[in-house]
């Protein structure tokens, strides 16, 4: 398995009236072929910004400052629009957040498929289009006859999410990027979507990158987890290692604060304090005001993302330089 995507030192900000929101502050990570990577963080931690910057779909007030996103040695951020269009959807497809609002309410499902195909310069006859769309809809366990000619308002939240996944799979991409695939869905629908993504990954051999705020969802689906805190990756490791032996104090806190059904109820412990505002992030390590192991150096210097001997990556002054 080789690398398929390599993100290097990605920096993005949002311009707002009060100043600049430093939403991605030097993000670097590698994604291997046929793997599932989860980007886990709280709301407003900059996790969606990473995906938006990678796919160049930042909102109007978003600015990419620096960094590279290498997809098979091609820098996506340096490509011009036409070249990028050739890669998008055919090789990298995106399932946007807020799936409930992502479909055009005045268009039937089939027209969404038609639009996508036309936008990418493919000439399919109506028959071919229906055939391809049906095939993809069956993959997400929807009945094509019932769904293809329906308007989005006739579908439930889980069905809309599945239509979007089918739409993203239409041109058979290598990489599927999903922004919060299970938020705003009920417990049962959520588990259904997770099962579905697991199966898709197995049968299609695609690379999945998804963003979630729910670390328990990441536990079910991901091979590797990147934990984001206030615009920085604080830890990047395989899912088994991260759950068995979390390294960063924030990851540790997150693990003991999740109220999962199988957790030991007497050991649940909330993290003290609030997440920082990204308008005026704390100096040094952005987690230091909430950290129980805070040292002098944490207040002054931002810890680099270190790679430890066993391959774990962590950004914390407790590790490195003989620490630990």
């Amino acid at each position, binding site marked *: 398995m080789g690398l398929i995507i390599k993100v290097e030192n990605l920096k993005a900000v949002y311009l707002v009236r009060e100043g600049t929101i430093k939403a991605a502050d030097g993000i670097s990570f590698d994604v291997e072929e046929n793997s599932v990577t989860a980007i886990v963080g*709280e*709301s407003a931690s900059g996790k969606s910004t990473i995906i938006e910057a990678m796919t160049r779909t930042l909102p109007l007030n978003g600015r990419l400052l620096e960094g590279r996103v290498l997809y098979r040695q091609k820098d996506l951020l340096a490509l011009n629009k036409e070249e990028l269009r050739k890669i998008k959807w055919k090789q990298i497809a995106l399932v946007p957040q807020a799936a409930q609002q992502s479909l055009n309410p005045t268009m039937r499902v089939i027209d969404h498929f038609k639009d996508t195909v036309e936008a990418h310069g493919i000439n399919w006859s109506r028959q071919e289009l229906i055939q391809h769309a049906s095939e993809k809809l069956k993959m997400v366990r929807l009945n094509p006859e019932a769904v293809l000619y329906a308007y989005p308002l006739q579908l*439930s939240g*889980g069905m809309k999410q599945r239509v979007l996944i089918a739409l993203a799979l239409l041109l058979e991409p290598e990489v599927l990027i999903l922004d919060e695939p299970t938020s705003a869905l*009920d*417990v*049962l*629908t*959520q*588990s*259904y979507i*997770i*099962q579905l993504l697991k199966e898709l990954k197995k049968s299609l051999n695609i690379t999945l990158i998804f963003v979630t*705020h*729910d*670390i*328990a*969802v990441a*536990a*079910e689906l*991901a091979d590797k987890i990147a934990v984001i805190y206030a615009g920085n990756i604080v830890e990047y490791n395989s*899912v*088994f290692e991260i*759950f068995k032996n979390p390294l960063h104090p924030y990851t540790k*806190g*997150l*693990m003991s*604060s*999740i*109220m*999962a*059904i*199988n*957790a030991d*109820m007497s050991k*649940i*412990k*909330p*993290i*003290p304090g*609030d*997440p920082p505002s990204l308008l005026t992030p704390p100096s040094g390590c952005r987690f230091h005001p909430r950290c129980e192991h805070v040292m002098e150096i944490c207040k002054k210097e931002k810890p680099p993302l270190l790679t430890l001997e066993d391959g774990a990556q962590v950004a914390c002054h407790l590790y490195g330089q003989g620490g630990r």
Partner: protein
Amino acid sequence: MQQVIKVSHVSKVFSRGYFKKHHKLVLDDIDLEVSEGDRLVIVGESGMGKTTLARIMAALESPSQGKVLWFGENISSMNKGEKKLLRGKVQYVHQDPYSSLHPAKTIFRTVADPLKNAQKIKGKELRQKVKELMEKVGLTPAEYFFNKYPHHLSGGGRQRLAIARALTTDPRVIIADEPISMIDMSLRAAIIKLFKDLNDLYNIAVVLVLHDIGAAKYFTYEKGEVAIIYGGKIVEMGEGAKVFDNPLHPYTKVLISSSPIADPQIARNRVVEQLRSYEVPERTPQSKGCPFVHACNYYVERCMEQNPCLEAVEDNHWVACHLLVNKDVDI
């Protein structure tokens, strides 16, 4: 122990259409009781009627049938004055702390204004009391927040402020509708913990409406009751530990088995039961049978015809399912 809220045979039907001819059954014959110092959590998915139930318990909505008692008195037969006296004893915390707080009121005034009204105090005493309440909910140091506005707080902070405001009338019960759904992951446990502390330290009964079954377990595992609601009906009810360790109703089982597990090893090896259908059909007052029958894997003919009632299977554990109770009737 004194009974605080009793809900007895409550049903709610919403009617729509120009002639109000389309009826939707939202709550179906609900019986609940909350006593002083109780913890109760109502668990269900969206559209199951749990918010309506909470609103009816708080007298923000009136039931179509049945009655609601506050401190032993029927609220529909109370006059305005009587209701006002009791109103402060039953407080409601809204779901979204981003819209439930006045954006142009300072944090001090958000708490102080209702306090002035409720307890007729002012000046130093008022200041002292506001400080006390804010410390109760963990907004410390209180003086630091006095002149700030809600937008300076995070979601968790806002929810704490909303809870402090609810405490101004010295309530005997707090009803909170999805208090953690709009709040960051790392702060959720802290809000549930706060409700637990209020219950433990001040003996305030707490009723939470949640869809997060893990949070429901955290809240009720040591003490308290849980009611699982499906299609406007309580399908299983009982002590937290009993329901979560030994779920009996097919819906509760599915709900527990499909909620995410924070352990990659277990999560990969478990088999999640697939339901027959994930759509929830609308119920009308004329609907027959168990509300879960369309999705249940174990249904029998009887389930299509007859709506099961809640019956005890052990001490403090009730289930409404034909397969589990009335064993003497052949199924």
